[in-house]
């Protein structure tokens, strides 16, 4: 009885299996034989019926030849060796998988880095479309999602003072700078972006009255052309201000700083997407002009060093900050992604002992964007922004440095909520790069490192840039910036916050134990 039952259920199970699944093994073996038989049949038909059948004969002959190669000669692809041409179906489906997932199957809140919902919100802001929704949030508010704490007694929107922010006013800097809004365009070089995208961003920045970081792309020729306020970024390779051997060239920095539009200088120590590694520009994207602006060859990837040769310990780093401050005469900041707390503390202590502070510190979260970076670094190195910011703020407070420097924040700050959370954690203003790329029309095709950007932003291919209209897209950039500021104002009013000092950690809800959230 028992054994009979067991046998019965086993065979029943097997029966079920063959009925419900395609037996790929048998199907492919049949297909491989059929391919040969079809060739024979076609040849016979060509002989006796019509020579036209030999069109088919030729195709089948070639297919059989390739199939033979796949099954018996090559050793790289196991599937092709085992199953022959039917296995190609898998490669075909896999190659169209990303598009299918993005267009048809991924739900609105699951794509990374930015979900469709998040991108759509930027598009609406950029196009000036009403962004109200219906039926309630699609976020899962219970898990790890930072929210703002409103007040029983909201402020009038008009009461909120503007969150303008000054740099260089905390020391006797000869040319301090004041930004009207706490929304800046983050570092994107000419090189990572194409010329038209840079022009559209710079024109939009001028229209909205916000500053724009040049990225480490050498002399910011195209950034300068549109009249926007610029923050010149000095990367570890010092493109634009370097000597032959990669050291800082004081004269070139002085000449660049003399430009009216260059308002500040940012020394990039590290970047959230690849902390501990220098900038990377794939050779596909190095045009003649870019090679010239940076002073690099065209035939290989441009890899910036991992650190500034002048900055090897806290003392030399602080001395270098002082040197850049003195040579440029401008406010000078540093940008890094936080690694070890103790190292930052030592650096700040060194600043205090030399009495030299950078005019701001940009904290870049590990979730920050990049044109090209090793995946292991994007995924595995550095602290996320909302973990890093409170630490930086705490160290600055404990070391008595809060009245000597300011904090800027960057790392997926594409909406007003995340920006205000960052500001509650101590940031005076926020940077975003990808937010403005989305405003330019980025569709998150994830090809920034291949020079094939389908919307002409991260490519130098004139055919792909053709559709990017600088004037139209600069309007979107400006509208997005204004919408962010307006939305910040509305949220601040709901929070009952009227001035900068009122915005602190007590005004945000951070759901996880270690004070983080997304």
């Amino acid at each position, binding site marked *: 009885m028992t054994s009979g039952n067991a046998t019965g259920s086993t065979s029943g199970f097997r029966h079920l299996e063959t009925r419900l699944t395609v037996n790929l093994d048998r199907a492919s073996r049949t297909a491989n034989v059929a391919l040969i038989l079809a060739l024979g049949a076609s*040849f016979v038909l*060509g*002989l006796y019926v*019509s*020579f*036209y059948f*030999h*069109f088919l*004969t*030729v*195709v089948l*002959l*070639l297919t059989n030849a*390739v199939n033979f*190669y*796949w099954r018996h000669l*090559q050793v*790289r*692809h196991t599937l*092709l060796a085992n199953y022959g041409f039917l296995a*190609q179906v898998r*490669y*075909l489906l896999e190659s169209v998988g990303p598009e299918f997932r993005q267009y048809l199957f991924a739900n609105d809140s699951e794509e990374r880095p930015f979900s469709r919902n998040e991108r759509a919100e930027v598009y609406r802001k950029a196009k000036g479309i009403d962004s109200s929704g219906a039926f309630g949030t699609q976020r899962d508010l219970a898990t790890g999602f930072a929210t703002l704490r409103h007040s029983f007694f909201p402020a009038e929107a008009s009461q909120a003072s503007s969150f303008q922010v000054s740099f260089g006013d905390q020391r006797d800097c000869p040319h301090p700078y004041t930004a009207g809004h706490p929304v800046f365009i983050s570092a994107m070089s000419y090189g990572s972006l194409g010329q038209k995208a840079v022009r559209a961003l710079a024109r939009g920045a001028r229209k909205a009255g916000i500053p724009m970081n040049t990225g480490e792309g050498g002399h910011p020729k195209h950034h300068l052309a549109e009249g926007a306020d610029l923050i010149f970024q000095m990367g570890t390779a010092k493109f634009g201000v370097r000597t032959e051997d990669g050291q800082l060239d004081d004269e070139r920095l002085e000449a660049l700083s003399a430009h009216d539009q260059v308002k500040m200088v940012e020394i990039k120590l590290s970047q959230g997407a690849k902390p501990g590694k220098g900038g990377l520009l*794939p050779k596909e994207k190095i045009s003649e002009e870019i090679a010239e602006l940076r002073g690099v060859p065209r035939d290989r990837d441009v890899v910036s060093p991992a650190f500034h040769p002048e900055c090897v310990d806290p003392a030399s780093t602080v001395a270098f900050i002082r040197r850049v401050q003195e040579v440029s005469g401008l406010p000078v900041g540093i940008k890094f992604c936080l690694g070890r707390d103790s190292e930052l503390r030592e650096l700040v202590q060194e600043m205090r002992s030399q009495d030299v502070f950078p005019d701001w510190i940009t904290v870049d979260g590990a979730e920050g964007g990049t044109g*090209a970076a*090793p995946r292991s670094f994007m995924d595995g190195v550095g602290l996320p922004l909302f973990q890093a910011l409170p630490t930086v703020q705490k160290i600055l407070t404990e070391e008595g440095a809060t009245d000597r420097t300011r904090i800027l924040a960057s790392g997926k700050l594409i909406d007003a909520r995340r920006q205000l959370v960052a500001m509650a954690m101590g940031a005076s203003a926020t940077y975003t790069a990808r937010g403005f790329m989305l405003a330019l029309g980025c569709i998150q095709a994830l090809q920034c*490192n291949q020079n094939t950007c389908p919307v002409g932003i991260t490519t130098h291919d004139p055919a792909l840039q053709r559709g990017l209209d600088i004037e139209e897209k600069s309007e979107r950039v400006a509208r997005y910036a204004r919408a962010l500021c307006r939305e910040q104002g509305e949220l601040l009013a709901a929070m009952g916050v009227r001035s900068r000092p009122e915005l602190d950690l007590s005004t945000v809800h951070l759901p996880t134990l270690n004070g983080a959230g997304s």
Partner: protein
Amino acid sequence: MKTLGLWALRILAAAILLPVGYQKLIGDEMSVMLFDTLGMEPHGRIIIGVVEIIAALLLLSPLAATGALLVVAVMLGAIIAHVTVLGVEVGGDGGRLLAMLATVFVSGTTVLVALRHQLPIIGHTLDRTGDERLP
């Protein structure tokens, strides 16, 4: 050196194919006779003529691999024609046509094998180094 040799073969094959394809299109006496024998007059003659010209032009373009595939396909058809219907000597030409055919077939095959990794869709499975490019 290798590129230079391939270019020589590409130009050689195209130089033979272009006039041959053109003769088929304008209805040259010899072509009409051949395709009459095969029972493909006039549609087969025009189709093959067009394919030959396209293949020759592709062979001289960056899509040479695809062009070579077309060349090989057309020449395979021609070989079948000679073997099954036409024979070695056609219209008393002393095998000149067959010699031309062989020349084009061999150059086309050489180019196809050399550039196989550039073929669309299946190219990456035919080459040792052309698969996953490191970032």
